[in-house]
């Protein structure tokens, strides 16, 4: 069964389309990454799934239920961690978790509540009212809040934005753990490296359209360039003939030659060409461009740094 099925989803704000006829499905048990630059329509899509934004046209089904006709069922099955920190300053963590469980029509289960509190490191802060919590603690609380009613699909909209590395790793570890226990995950993140490591499949949105949707490995392999770096015994004076198609580049005074193997090109052919060139190779290194380059290539965006494409 599909945890989420989106059909011809369309939304515009003041006549400007934000999501343009989106179609995709997430099978139960998957970790699905929805990526795209700011304004691509990711949050609008997620908010239509969650019910915060009204659907313009099209259909959203969660576990076979229509999220407009059977909204009580679909909302019961969904948990969402919003992009912005959303807390109620009046309550303590314990009170707020009890309240959220009730909102979803699920009786408070102290064992599950305590497990979330411990697993997310909230125990020392239980008695504090929300306003006194640090930013990181508020983020952790938001994850606990989204999971308190045991959703079958957890939606994480940029849950690690502005969160330190340690907490980020901890959160992803926890997300993997609950996924292994059966919860389907839909996440958006600006940290492409994380998406590459976390997601089974990735969809890339741009200007309200889905411009790529594939298993993460395939997407990276299919669209990314591989690079071969060669250390030569003798410095090169000029570029060797027969290697032009690999966009060769000479570095380090001619002792290093860098060749690029375009997506889909044969590595064997390149190696044959290399042998024919008669170069005296001392050592070599290969690497593959990651999701970030794929993302930039697809969306035509550049200038991102430090793993962020925003």
């Amino acid at each position, binding site marked *: 069964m599909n945890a989420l099925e989106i059909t011809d989803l369309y939304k515009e*704000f003041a006549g400007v389309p934000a999501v343009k006829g989106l179609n995709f499905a997430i099978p139960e048990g998957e970790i699905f990454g929805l990526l795209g630059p700011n304004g691509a329509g990711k949050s609008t899509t997620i*908010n239509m799934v*969650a*019910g*915060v*934004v*009204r659907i313009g046209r099209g259909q959203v089904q969660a576990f076979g239920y229509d999220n407009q006709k059977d*909204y*009580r*069922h679909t*909302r*019961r099955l*969904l948990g*969402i961690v*919003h992009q*912005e920190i*959303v*807390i*109620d*300053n*009046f*309550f303590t963590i314990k*009170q707020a978790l009890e*309240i*959220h*469980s*009730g*909102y*979803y*029509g*699920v*009786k408070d*289960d102290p*064992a*599950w509540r305590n*497990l979330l509190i411990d697993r997310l490191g909230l125990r020392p802060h239980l008695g504090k009212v929300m306003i006194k919590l640090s930013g990181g603690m508020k983020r952790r609380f938001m994850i606990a*809040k989204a*999971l308190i009613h*045991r959703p079958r699909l957890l939606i994480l909209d940029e849950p690690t934005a502005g969160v330190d590395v340690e907490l980020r790793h901890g959160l992803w570890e926890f997300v993997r753990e*609950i996924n292994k*226990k*059966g*919860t389907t995950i839909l996440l958006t993140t600006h940290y492409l490296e994380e998406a590459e490591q976390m997601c089974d499949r990735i969809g890339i949105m741009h200007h309200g359209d889905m411009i790529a949707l594939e298993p993460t490995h395939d997407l990276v392999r299919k669209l990314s360039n591989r690079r071969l770096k060669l250390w030569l015994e003798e410095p090169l004076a000029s570029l060797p003939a027969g290697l032009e198609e690999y966009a060769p580049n000479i570095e380090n005074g001619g002792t290093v030659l860098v060749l690029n193997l375009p997506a889909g090109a044969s590595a064997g052919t390149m190696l044959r060409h290399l042998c024919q060139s008669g170069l005296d190779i001392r050592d070599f290194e290969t690497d593959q461009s990651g999701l970030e380059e794929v993302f930039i290539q697809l969306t035509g965006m550049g200038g991102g740094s430090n793993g962020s494409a925003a």
Partner: protein
Amino acid sequence: MVQQPDNRFYAWLPFVTLLRKEILRFRRVSTQTLLAPIVTASLYLFVFGATLGNRLTVLEGFSYAQFVIPGLIMMGVINNSFANTSSSLFMSRYLGGIVDLLVTPVTPPQFIMAYTLAAMLRGLLVGSVVLLISLLFASLPWEYPLLAALMAMIASFLFAQFGLIAAIYAHNFDTLSVYTNFMILPLIYLGGVFYPISILPDPWATLSYLNPLFYLIDGFRHAIIGVGDTSFAIAFGVSATMATALFAWAAWLIGKGYRLRS
């Protein structure tokens, strides 16, 4: 995820939880939500009951304290019912916390009724305490106590709806305060809390009949002291009609998700 034996969906639980949360909210800031209005009403009682009131008579056969107390009780009920829904919903909208509710299975009727009942509780609680304090200043005849309770309930229900509507339409705190300071406050003061409108010269007396709050205040006082500027049936009919109309308006806004869902 760890399997849990009772993971069933209880359809009534979202409503009960939201109601509980709304009550907890005003209890948590009770200095502002309960104590402050009680102190204000007590000061009015002291001024009109123990000092000025002894020198005033506006209605034959009743002391001024007996006349003004029902109006002061109603003022507490109205102000606090309105303040509860308007500030709670507006703050949720303003600070963004409303999305926490919008993504849950809480239905629009549950949403309205939970907010309304919490506001009614606060309004009626303040009204009851004002009533208890008023016993220090005057004893009331209590002609029709059940009808008085009914009028107080209608007033709290009506202003809970009005609070929801104001919270939805308000853009900022300034707009919200317009409802309190430029609508409710003048309408209460001119609606016969402190004087019977029959003592006003025309056209003010006639114009006062257009004040919707007059019917709530007059009906409530009529039920307590047995006389009023208009018949109880008219006061009740107008109040109940207004309450129904505002409920329909609030229900339409919330059902549609107007300014709640984009």
